[in-house]
């Protein structure tokens, strides 16, 4: 197809909007000036200070722990949900209702999920002290919105693989355990991994929900950056942001590359 000449121009404008500010921060992270933005010379000092900054290290650790635990929980729950919904002859009303329920957290603005959870935790706290704002509430909150994303991804994989192999396994007298471990789960694995990766990214990325449900001692990286913006930023935050941006970019490009390699390979 031939496109009008302004189409690439507008596209590059879009790309510029996406990347220009990130580039600005990357440049500033190598600037030796402590206050303000005037160029004082090239330095990698901020990166060195970043890796010895207690607050940043503990926030990074919190983000990682939170991401891993909530992703594991959400992946297990979401995968079971997807299998249960897709592989049982549920009545129509139940299917429609579940569809709606699963899509709800995806389209609801996160601030709504956040305040709903804040209210829920306030009620639950009366009943058990375990729900005091902190790591536990963060993990519960993240798991709650991650389940939907895992279920959606795994469901689409379930549709792709179809039922033939499970039926064949049944005909060959496999019992339920064997079917799950030898047939269903291995075939589902790419979907489960993709769902888990998506859930993990969303957890790392989340600011709004964490902002509302966390307590004073559980700070994640996004919360730390927001707080530093409020207090007045140190250049270590520039360095940290740049590291996060580059890390995310490498991760996504790697995933795209692996997927491209997979699709290029003939079907097993």
């Amino acid at each position, binding site marked *: 197809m031939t496109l009008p000449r302004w189409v690439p121009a507008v596209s590059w404008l879009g790309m510029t909007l996406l990347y220009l500010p990130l580039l600005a921060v990357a440049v500033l992270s190598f600037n030796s000036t402590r206050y303000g933005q005037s160029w004082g010379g090239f330095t990698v000092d901020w990166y060195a200070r970043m890796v010895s900054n207690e607050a940043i290290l503990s926030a990074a650790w919190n983000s990682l722990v939170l991401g891993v635990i909530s992703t594991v929980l959400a992946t297990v729950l979401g995968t079971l949900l997807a299998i249960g919904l897709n592989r049982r002859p549920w009545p129509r009303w139940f299917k429609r209702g579940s569809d709606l329920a699963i899509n709800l957290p995806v389209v609801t603005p996160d601030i709504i999920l956040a*305040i709903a959870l804040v209210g829920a935790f306030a009620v639950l706290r009366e009943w058990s002290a375990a729900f005091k704002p902190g790591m536990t509430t963060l993990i519960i909150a993240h798991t709650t919105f991650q389940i939907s994303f895992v279920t959606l991804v795994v469901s689409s994989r379930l549709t792709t693989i179809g039922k033939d192999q499970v039926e064949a396994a049944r005909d060959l007298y496999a019992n339920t355990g064997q079917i799950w471990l030898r047939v269903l789960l291995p075939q589902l694995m790419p979907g489960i991994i993709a769902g888990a990766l998506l859930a993990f990214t969303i957890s790392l990325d989340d600011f709004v929900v964490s902002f509302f449900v966390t307590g004073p001692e559980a700070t994640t990286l996004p919360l730390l950056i927001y707080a530093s913006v409020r207090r007045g930023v140190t250049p270590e935050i520039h360095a940290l942001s740049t590291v996060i941006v580059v890390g995310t970019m490498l991760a996504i490009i790697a995933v795209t590359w692996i997927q491209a390699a997979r699709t290029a390979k003939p079907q097993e």
Partner: protein
Amino acid sequence: MRANTCGWNSRQTTCWSCAIKPVIIHDGYLTTKPHLYGRGALLVGLAFLWMGVFLFAPLAGLSALAFASRGEYGGVEWTFTWENLSRLAGHDEFGFSWNHLLILWRSVVLAAVTTVLCLLIGFPMAFWIAARPAAARPLLLALVMVPSCVNLVIRTYAWQQFLGSQMPAAWVAQHLGLVPDGASLYPTVTAVYLGMVSAMLPFTVLPLYTSVERLDWSLVEAARDLHAGRLRTFRHGILAQCMPGLLAATILTFIPSLGMFVISDMLGGAKFLLVGNLIQQQFGSMNNWPFGATAGLFLVIASLFALWGLRIVSEREAGRR
């Protein structure tokens, strides 16, 4: 027939429900619906229990909270009142004020203008990516998606840095006399829009791309052959085919924009309040949860409309196949 008709337990020789209920074939073996439901409930039960406790019940609670009263010391009193709703509509203890309606209006306008801007930039981008060689497309798409995976706070902070008083953009504006010397370009409304568009653009491009990629170009050629002008070709040949993607992109851009509070907070300054900021204040410093919940209800209703819209899109898609 196998001894084990249900596959439920290898030691179980007969299933009590098979004997009395009509038998169906599912996954290639004989069983009954109640039995399947029983095991299915086990699979879906865990997740739905979790979502019930931490999502559906809290959302229902939130809706109830919108009609509760505020206690004397900031707590919640469960007595029914319309007061929060009428306060959102402008009637507070000091008489009528436009403040809250203005906040709602500003949020809707911001979300609408952001969506239009994103569509204007995102639609050409979708065509541009779709016209690249097949090998380059996933990478370009990934490049568009990468910023959306970088935390929003970082990206907004990046805009603050980019628009800072000593950066080239501000320097140009200062020399053109648009802003006073030494001033930065935020907090301004322009800064909010820059932040919004760059934050939402990936969510506009992705659904648009999926429908542009599947575009049937023979219909476009047919329109050309029938001497349709450029505009009519675009409208009836291209736009009509992209409608589902366009609707999905609109919803996926509009709803998150409506609930935004980080960008307006960091780039718009204290005067640029949105529903999101209002909710945050009521749940934070103001400690008036019922009123915050009422403002939240506005967003919930908007997102329910979104769900309904997406459902129509997916049903149409299913009908087309």
